[in-house]
């Protein structure tokens, strides 16, 4: 009852703005047109009808597309920063880019191939000072919680010389931070979203480890706390067969995703990745029926991020000559 009074006063303005913006999102129809477009030029013409248009005018190569999408997100976050009454929600999303950047830098420092991973401009960390700090091992200038996560990741790597340790430590720090941010907002929708995300990360760690026949100690170390499916349960299931694993998860919301990802005696992580995004988008759709509050604000950012992700798949897919059918298989469920 009290929230029904407080929420419109606190979030009303921001929700009003994003509710209108939601109607301008790409939506399934337009995405389908983008998938079926003849070439990138046609796609640009379709995008010109939307607020993406101005970002793609000069784009030619896949690198340009990446940059345009990055710019689009930067402008989006600037807009949200201006209207959201609760900056912590934005920090939730931006801290993920910071942790991504830390991973990229650490792996570059230790000479690991980073593949397609590139520096994201969306983080809050100052690139030059961080780069220098990490290179020289001087972390004083870096703020918490990044600093302690970096320190631990670096010392763990130097002990084990295993670059996976960097991912494990930084992921743990990231999800702990995300959980704390959500918990502070005292919003069930938000907390449950984080816990579901943690479950999904755990399931991925589990599946990858199983595929590579890693030892149990690895799983015990890498799994995250605070998910709905407890860490202990997953550890207990690790030595069991895939059938038992699928059966044990039958009562959870992840049953379908896990079942569909089983391919013989292995897990197909490509399928799981796609289902994972679909699952989370379906979850945030609950917020569509909440007229005002924190929920629409959170789900708008998630929906936009998902839209950008989908757009990246479609545009880069088209540029690299994939068929419409192949691209369509990779396209995610959309919020609108």
């Amino acid at each position: 009852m009290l929230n029904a009074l407080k929420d419109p006063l606190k979030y009303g303005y921001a929700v009003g703005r994003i509710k209108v913006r939601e109607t301008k999102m790409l939506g399934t129809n337009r995405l389908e047109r983008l998938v079926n477009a003849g070439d990138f030029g046609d796609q640009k013409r379709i995008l010109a009808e939307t607020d993406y248009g101005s970002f793609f005018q000069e784009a030619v190569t896949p690198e340009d597309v990446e940059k345009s999408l990055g710019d689009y997100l930067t402008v989006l976050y600037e807009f949200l920063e201006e209207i959201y009454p609760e900056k912590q929600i934005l920090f939730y999303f931006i801290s993920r880019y910071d942790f991504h950047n830390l991973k990229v830098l650490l792996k570059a420092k230790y000479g690991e191939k980073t593949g397609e991973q590139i520096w994201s401009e969306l983080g809050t960390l100052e690139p030059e000072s961080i780069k220098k700090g990490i290179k020289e091992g001087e972390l004083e200038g870096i703020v918490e919680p990044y600093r302690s996560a970096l320190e631990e990741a670096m010392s763990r790597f130097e002990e084990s010389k295993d670059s996976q340790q960097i991912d494990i430590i930084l992921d743990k720090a990231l999800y702990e931070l995300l959980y704390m941010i959500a918990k502070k907002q005292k919003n069930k929708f938000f907390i449950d979203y984080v816990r579901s995300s943690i479950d999904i990360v755990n399931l991925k760690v589990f599946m990858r480890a199983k595929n590579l026949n890693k030892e149990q100690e690895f799983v015990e170390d890498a799994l995250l706390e605070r998910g709905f499916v407890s860490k202990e349960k997953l550890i207990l299931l690790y030595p069991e067969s895939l059938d038992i694993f699928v059966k044990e998860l039958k009562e959870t919301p992840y049953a379908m995703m896990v079942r569909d990802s089983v391919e013989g005696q292995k897990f197909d992580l490509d399928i799981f990745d796609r289902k994972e995004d679909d699952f989370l988008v379906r979850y945030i759709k609950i917020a569509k029926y909440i007229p005002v509050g924190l929920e629409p604000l959170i789900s708008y950012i998630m929906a936009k991020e998902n839209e950008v992700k989908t757009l990246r798949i479609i545009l880069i897919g088209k540029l690299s000559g994939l068929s419409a059918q192949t691209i369509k298989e990779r396209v995610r469920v959309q919020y609108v």
Partner: protein
Amino acid sequence: MNETFLWLNGYQWTVLAASLSVIFGGIGSCIGITSAAKMSAGVLAEDPDKFGGLLVLSILPGTQGIYGFITGLLVVVFFGLLGGDGKSIVLAQGMRIFLGCLPVMIMCLISGIYQGVVSTAGVAMVAKRGETAGQGMILSALVETYAVLSLVVSLFLIMAAQAG
């Protein structure tokens, strides 16, 4: 004449009745309108064409304040509070006037706030689809009913108190 109940005599109870009717109706409307108008402002910042529908949705919770005002004004006029005749109101009559105003005081406070909640949801609806403004107004007006009913009963009770 100088009989009192809870330290107030008949005249004072009458003044209290008129004041609280205006105050509580006003509070309900303020909260209701703020709730709907704040969200409308967000929608209008993006799409100024929706002003027509949003104005009506935002203004609907405002009627409760008017009902409180009508009630308060009638008490002032009926019982001669302006001219000084009101001083002669006995405690029994003052209490009847106060109790007669209770429906408006309570119902306008509560229904104003809740009408704001429904109007806010209506604003969210209009943000998505402009043509649903009419439906939003009807839903919001459903809450209005009970404020009107309380006004009618309060008016009758005040008239009964005046008739003696």
